[in-house]
């Protein structure tokens, strides 16, 4: 059923009812974005909740980030732990409410949607979780788990039809359809993640937010799951927001990649450009940390080792949030926040001194 509704038709739908906020957000083919995140911010208020008395400030997890995802593409979002990439995904899905900015999905602003509209939005947007153990209810069979979205959205009310469809889905994600009545604890991590994928695809959504879907899996299983995801994408034209901390995983699957640091977007580009010619010193240091399976290259290349830990998001640095660890930081970096500006066609970078790799030798920590 998703085959008829593939990417181009979808884009036409969006174009028909395009709000003024999406003006100018078209891609090379003139398509409007499926998802447009505009100046999204999330601050966690610390004066409410269970641990209120222990903290007295606000945590700025995501601060003014913007990006577009076009129908059928995979958009990678990378960054180290705690940089706000998962929070970004959860804000888009409205699992947490953003504190600022707009999120347009299918031309509608998700950020201020009411409950009723959220439900229909969630028909077209699904989520795959990082932990395949925590994301499946241990008291439900996998058949119940996968058919739950269908039940919630009132699709396939006939039980037999629904179960047949679930068996088809199980087969599609590489699980034995006979196992429909088994419980999650009878499966391995990789198999459970396949169940999670089957559940996400049950409604044939237009966008799936994958929150580190393979980082909890063995390396040998990671590739299988990534192949499964890209195979399903080819078949159904689904767009992915692929959140990861592993650059090699993102490279494997993404069309475009955005690098996040401490709640800010640092660089955004298609992955080939980003990997071949990073402009931002943070991206450069990340890429220099990816091991190369060639000892000669590995030995001869220069590693940029960042000093210290990322600062706390409770009290983020002024100006560029990266300046405290940046090897090329100047005075301006601590005063002015650099805008995300286009440094080459389709390549955006938020740095006062954006320059293609390699950065100046003298500033590199060997």
């Amino acid at each position, binding site marked *: 059923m998703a085959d008829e509704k593939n990417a181009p038709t979808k884009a036409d739908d969006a174009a028909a009812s395009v709000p003024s906020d999406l003006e100018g957000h078209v891609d090379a083919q003139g398509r409007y974005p499926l998802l447009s995140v505009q100046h999204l911010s999330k601050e966690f208020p610390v004066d409410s909740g269970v641990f209120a008395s222990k903290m007295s400030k606000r945590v700025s997890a995501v601060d003014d980030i913007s990006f577009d995802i076009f129908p059928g593409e995979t958009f990678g979002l990378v960054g180290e732990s705690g940089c706000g990439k998962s929070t970004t995904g959860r804000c888009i899905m409205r699992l947490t409410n953003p504190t600022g900015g707009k999120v347009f999905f299918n031309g509608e602003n998700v950020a201020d949607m009411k409950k009723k509209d959220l439900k229909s939005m969630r*028909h077209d947007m699904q989520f795959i979780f990082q932990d395949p153990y925590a994301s499946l*209810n241990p008291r439900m069979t996998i058949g119940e788990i996968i058919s739950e*979205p269908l039940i919630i959205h009132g699709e396939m009310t006939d039980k037999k039809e629904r179960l047949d469809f679930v068996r088809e889905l199980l087969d599609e994600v590489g699980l034995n359809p006979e196992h429909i009545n088994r419980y999650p604890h009878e499966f391995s991590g990789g198999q459970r993640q396949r169940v999670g994928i089957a559940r996400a695809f049950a409604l044939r959504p237009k966008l799936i937010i994958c929150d580190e879907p393979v980082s909890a899996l063995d390396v040998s299983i990671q590739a299988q799951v990534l192949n499964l995801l890209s195979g399903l994408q080819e078949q159904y034209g689904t767009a992915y927001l692929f959140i990861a901390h592993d650059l090699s995983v993102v490279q494997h699957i993404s069309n475009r990649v955005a690098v996040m640091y401490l709640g800010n977007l640092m660089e955004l580009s298609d992955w080939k450009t980003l990997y071949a010619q990073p402009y931002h010193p943070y991206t450069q240091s990340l890429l220099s940390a990816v091991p190369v399976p060639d000892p000669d290259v590995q030995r001869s290349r220069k590693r940029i080792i960042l000093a210290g830990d990322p600062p706390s998001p409770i009290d983020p640095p002024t100006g560029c949030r990266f300046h405290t660890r940046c090897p090329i930081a100047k005075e301006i970096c601590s005063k002015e926040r650099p805008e995300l500006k286009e440094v080459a066609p389709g390549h955006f970078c938020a740095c006062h001194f954006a320059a293609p790799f390699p950065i100046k030798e003298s500033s590199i920590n060997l």
Partner: protein
Amino acid sequence: MDKNTDMPIYAVDEKSGAQGGPVNQGSPEPETTAAAKPTRTLWSDAWGRLRKNKLAMIGAIWIIFIVIVALTCDLWAPQWLGSPTQIDSSQMSELSKLPPSAEHPFGTDALGRDVLCRVIYGSRISLSVGILATAISTVIGLVMGALAAYYGGIWDTIIMRLADIFLAFPYTLFVIVLIAVLGQSITNVFIAIGLLGWPSIARVFRSAILSVKENDYVDAARAMGASDARIVIRHIFPNSVASIVVYATMNIGGAILTESALSYLGMGVTPPTPSWGIMIEDGQTYLATQPWLMLFPGLAIITTVLAFTLLGDGLRDALDVKMKDA
């Protein structure tokens, strides 16, 4: 994409086997043997662990025994031991305060009634108060705990402070006051005990929900567009109910104790209805000379409460639940 190439080897084997394709007979895969096993739910796993716990099983057997006795005693006890309430005034002096014998295994009381018979009938009061009062507290506690934990914020504050206030009251005195207001009857006894028992259940359930709520499958359900009611009923409740089962089991023992204390104080059931608390109260006068009058109802209370505690302990281990705020 060729799906078969990226699947785990064992899944390929298993799948082709299931579909009658080219079956790899050579290697019995671990996954294939697992497929032959009957599906085991978490509850059946818990039952398997509980069965191995001797003390819990002794408790369970004792509880089942008492329940059967209480349910069926009308059929056999009066014929064997006489009426638990009626006094035969013509024979009262001969039958009064007889020591245990073959005819009266637990002896007789001051009015010539058989003590065993009264202990048996007393179990009806104790069990019904224990179970019904716990049922009332559990229902109220579940709703309160669920509201507090799921909605949090102001709901949490109001409900939990209310629970704190309830817990700060002197429990037995409060029950006595409540019965004095409602009027003295067995129904009011379990209503009073039930109404006052919810705060601790609410606290246990609240903490159980708070830990279950953190799981991704709750977010997954929300991401699917599930309603709050569906999330609570299908996802949160089944995963946090184990702690309630444990706590409620132990709570039954506590309610039985409270009922005994109330009856002892004359605030529970009215004579001549036999209750273990009333029998102890009646027997205390004769403690030095006819100790069986107090001993047997006392033993009945101790063994029954102990049985519920042992079963509750066993359930906790079997369901692997961490008790908080208990």
